[in-house]
């Protein structure tokens, strides 16, 4: 078994199991802590509708905060949209998903994906620079922040290197790319990248509590 087969096969599979297992473990660890019922008389609708509302609405920044948070917000949008696009709209990725989902979807031309990938890496670097220079970010950041940044950037960079080659064999570059994806999947449930699924809980609970009060969300 060569490196590519190893990466594509058992490594990716193990990473997927760890991703699923770790996610379930973390979610259960949080949900099983439970919460006491709220007996106050509701003013507005709570429940899942309120959760859904805030899961959606908190993607936007309220007017009073727009100016102060402009830089991280723009970079954050580019990073997140870029990640979604490169993962889900790159044709070879779609072919890969089709392999086990049984269906595919239209993708974007490779050149556009390459451009998006570069923009995503630039936004990642811009956010890292902010983390390294802002006194607030320097104070509150820890290992998780830097390592999570690293494992997110790695698949992007290794992916972008595949068409560039740099004299390295295609199979080797692809194997390294897949291994970097495996590392991302393995780390995702344990550190701050868990916000991929935790965002539904955090925004959702706030939505339920504050919409119920009829308060600003």
């Amino acid at each position, binding site marked *: 078994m060569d490196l590519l087969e190893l990466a594509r096969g058992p490594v990716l599979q193990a990473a997927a199991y760890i991703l699923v297992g770790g996610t379930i*473990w*973390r979610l259960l*660890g949080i949900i099983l*802590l439970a919460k006491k019922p709220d007996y*106050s008389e509701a003013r507005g609708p709570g429940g899942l509708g309120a959760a859904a509302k805030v899961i959606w609405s908190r993607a936007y920044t309220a007017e009073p905060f727009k100016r*102060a948070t402009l830089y991280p917000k723009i970079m954050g949008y580019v990073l997140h949209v870029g990640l979604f696009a490169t993962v889900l709209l790159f044709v070879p990725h779609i072919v890969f998903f089709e392999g086990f989902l049984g269906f595919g979807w239209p993708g974007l031309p490779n050149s556009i994906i390459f451009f998006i990938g570069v923009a995503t890496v630039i936004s990642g670097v811009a956010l890292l620079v902010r983390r390294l220079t802002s006194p*607030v*970010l320097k104070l509150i950041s820890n290992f998780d922040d830097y390592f999570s940044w690293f494992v997110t950037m790695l698949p992007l960079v290794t992916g972008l290197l595949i068409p560039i080659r740099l004299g390295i064999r295609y199979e080797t570059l692809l194997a390294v790319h897949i291994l970097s994806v495996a590392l991302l999947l393995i780390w995702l449930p344990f550190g*701050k990248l868990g916000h991929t699924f*935790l965002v539904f809980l955090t925004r959702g609970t706030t939505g339920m509590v504050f919409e119920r009060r009829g308060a600003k969300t």
Partner: protein
Amino acid sequence: MTTVDGRTTLDREAERLAYKPPEVRHDTQGDMTTEQRVETAMHHFVKDFNTQTASYLDGCVHCGMCADACHYFVRTDDPRYTPIWKMELFKQAYKREVGPFAFFYRLFGFKKKVTIDQLEEWQHLLYDSCTVCGRCSLVCPMGIDIAGMVSMARHGMFKAGLIPHELHETAKRAAETGSPLGITPEKFKERVEWMADEHEVDIPLNVEKADVLAVMSSIEIQKYPESIAATAKILNATGESWTFSTDGYEATNFGMLSGNLEWQKAASMKLIDTAIKLGAKTLVLPECGHAYMAMRWMGANMYGKPLPFKVLHITEYLADVMNSGRLKVKKVDKSVTFHDPCQVSRRGGATQAPRDVLKHLGVDFREMPNGGDYNWCCGGGGGVITIKRADELRHRVFKLKMDQMEATGAEELLSSCANCRQSFDDSEQHFGWNHSMGSLMEMVAENLEEQKS
């Protein structure tokens, strides 16, 4: 027993404005050992971890945006005032003791044990420099309610005897006498009788059965007693069957502000029991922000089941009776801006009520830039106004409020919280600011239309 840190002096007699806050002052209560304090704080931090707090503590992505929403950070540029940093010890305790991966955090020492030095440092961050105003909770892209967690972290701090001296003393006085300013039932009765006499208004006291129980805050009873008369004039004008009661008259809840859950519950139960005894259908809360949070949103949870009566802030009551035509007022020819108390509006959801009332008064209402739910806090909430060593910082953040209000050019400043009003009075004096904060309810009471009999 509460002990003031001996490293600096605490001169309680000194003029507030002359008071120079010490560099460091960590107060302690009780005579626990250092280890006991840490253990107690941890034990009680852990008690507050539920699905909501756990998802918040696990979900933070350290983006730091909350700093830009916090008046303390905005006015000082000190990164320690980043709201989520105020939760660092709470988070440390969660990750190490309770979180889904706590075992690994302990095994590999990824999260160190919280130390007494940290807890002492965080006394300043959890009390002196957070008014629990919740502005940060609105900017967080993950939707984390940081302010709610600050209140929870205070539970552990109180149990460990690590809260600011003055706040502890005030909360203790409230627990012992029923009022943070020491207003006993006899004193309340005296004030009510004085106001009834002074304003020639009937003020029902200790009526056996009534539909409405009205309560006051001690700041009003002591400092703004006209509020008692204003409340009476309004409730009389609506023809309501109502009363004050010496069994339950104090709406403030320093148990909640200091972090003592038992005291919080006792204060709430006093009002709940009184309302039930009267057979009241409605409990009308006074112009006080935190009293609204304590009773409207936490009261039933202290009671352990839904309350058998409605809870309304006086502004909500006014909006109700004015919207339904039960209370009529004369038009007021003035320009007015309104300061929203954080716990009533942003965190309590009653933002529209004062705007309805102002509309009925026919004033030239001028909304502040970024007002309403995004209002800057007055700086005095969350018990901060009681903490003398926090005065300099409190005045610093008040500058934002002054700018926000001045931008409207309004003649009158109104609010619906006596604590905000007190905070304004103090800061006005400090800055020699040529404005005075008034009460919305009092403006209504002064402009009631003669009732047709």
